[in-house]
């Protein structure tokens, strides 16, 4: 490598770094299309899969993926593609409830802490520290052991683990926006505390919060699948993705598709949510 190429290297490297993060719209489009497909599966599953997700054809048991059964069939002859399609509503709705839970409570805590400051701020932030100090799975399990097993319980249990992230972000955003000149001006021109908060601070803090919501949506799907896998979510024969992977474990030696394909669907959903979150926060920064 000659000296001239070396001196030019830093700049090309830096631009390639930026390009790697930003200018790949194909991936973003793919992520959006994929998530749209997931939502369509959730809203109109009958349009995409014609079989029955609960009752199978016993003679069709454990068939490998084929033209007739895209994702293969499980031990009781249920079509795995149908089950994955009908399962998307469970995962997506549970994740949505979980994120909304974290968003509402977390942003609420952050707004109050960042606006009121003082003792309230200190107390609320220590509570948030506690939520961060307990490993997320153990936090979820503590809620589940009290509330019992089930889809709603899982949604709340996962939602609580995202409260801390929303609270910290909302607080930081409120403190950042509060220091802006136009907020000072709004106060100076006689705006009351609450009206300035709602009309100026909240809307300007929203974009990063939404980016975090998309990110948490992906994390929530991972947690829901894990809790479903452990058997704490919807009971069988619900076609929940995590539960399907757990059920497929018994046939791991012979039927790879039972565990692999639902897992790939989960990974793609999380990847898509993360990609969209990155796009939102990059647009905000630009």
């Amino acid at each position, binding site marked *: 490598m000659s000296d001239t190429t070396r001196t030019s290297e*830093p700049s090309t490297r830096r631009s390639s770094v930026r390009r790697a993060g930003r200018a790949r719209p194909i991936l973003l489009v793919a992520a959006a299309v994929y998530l749209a497909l997931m939502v369509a599966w959730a809203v109109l599953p009958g349009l995409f899969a014609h079989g029955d997700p609960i009752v199978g054809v016993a003679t069709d048991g454990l068939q490998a993926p084929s033209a007739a059964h895209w994702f293969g069939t499980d031990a009781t002859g249920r079509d795995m593609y149908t089950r994955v399609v009908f399962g998307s509503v469970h995962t997506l709705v549970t994740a949505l409830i979980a994120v909304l839970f974290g968003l509402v409570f977390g942003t609420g805590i952050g707004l109050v802490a960042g606006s009121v400051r003082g003792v309230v701020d200190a107390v609320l932030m220590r509570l948030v520290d506690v939520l961060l100090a307990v490993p997320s799975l153990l936090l979820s399990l503590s809620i589940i052991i009290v509330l019992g097993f089930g889809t709603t319980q899982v949604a709340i249990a996962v939602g609580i683990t995202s409260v801390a992230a929303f609270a910290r972000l909302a607080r930081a955003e409120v403190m950042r926006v509060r220091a802006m000149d136009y907020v000072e001006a709004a106060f100076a021109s006689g705006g009351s505390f609450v009206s300035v908060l709602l009309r100026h601070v909240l809307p300007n803090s929203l974009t990063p919060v939404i980016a975090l919501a998309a990110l948490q949506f992906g994390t929530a799907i991972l947690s829901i699948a894990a809790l479903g896998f452990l058997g704490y979510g919807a009971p069988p024969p619900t076609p929940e993705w995590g539960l399907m992977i757990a059920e497929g474990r018994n046939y791991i030696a012979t039927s790879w598709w039972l565990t692999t394909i639902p897992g790939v669907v989960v990974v793609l959903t999380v990847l898509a949510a993360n990609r969209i979150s990155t796009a939102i926060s990059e647009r905000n920064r630009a």
Partner: protein
Amino acid sequence: MSYILGRIGQAVIVLAIAFTAAFVLLQALPGDALLIKFESPESGLSPDQIALLRDSLGANIPIWQQFFDTLGGFLVGDFGYSVQSGTPVSVIIASALPNTLVLATSAFVVAIVLAVALAVLAQLSWLPWLRTMLRSLPSLFISVPVFWLGIVLIQVFSFRLGWLPVINPGPIEGLIMPVAALALPIAAPMAQVLIRSIDDVLTQPFIAVVRSKGASEWWILSRNVARNAVLPALTIAGLLLGELISGAVITETVFGRAGIGRATEQAVTNQDAPVLQAIVVISAAIFVLVNLLVDLLYPLLDPRLKTIATVNA
């Protein structure tokens, strides 16, 4: 000095709240539910036996006294008794902990090695497509569920290739796949932070000076960048401890390893709140202590922070 004291005080407060929250959630709330279980006619217990049971479970003691009894017990390592088996929780934890510690520490070390290797390779590789690929690996592995990764590993390495047995593996053999399943999702966010902070350091003027003096890329990375990039990595490593504990619970379940994770899973399935309470409080304590240590180490590793800390003091 006041920085250190303040930070320690903060840690103590967080631990106190964590203990209280775990007490309220897992002891005060379900306490009555457990008694309902024993008082139902199906249990076949006479009123005398129930009274005895209530006494032995401490249900007749006022709640604030229960709180201080439990707190005192936790401070000296007495975590009460398992509802399911009646064994002391401390015995359950003591027998499960060594396995989990081996799994978690090996996974943590492997994760650090993987993250550093990936970050360095991503910087040193001169092929643009390779660099892009290495850089996008972490975001892929962040999106992979730990339990599924474990299953895929078993599928590929045990059943397809037949390299590693799943049934009765040797102590080392049996550790390889669980450690990999646990380490990869931890290594991914670590590598992301490392790559980002290396990028940040590389754009600083002093790097241009070193480079113009004729230093090689490897020299710059190992001498100049490493010291600066290690600090954010240290912070994220502390924060990832929670992920490590969560991941260990799932990994142990997938691979059928005995340990804290299996104990946790059984506690939830059997509604054994005292066991979960102890595990939650101990995990929180470990998390808080490690992150306290990281914060206290920070000024030692970064002289700039030392002056800020003393100026503030």
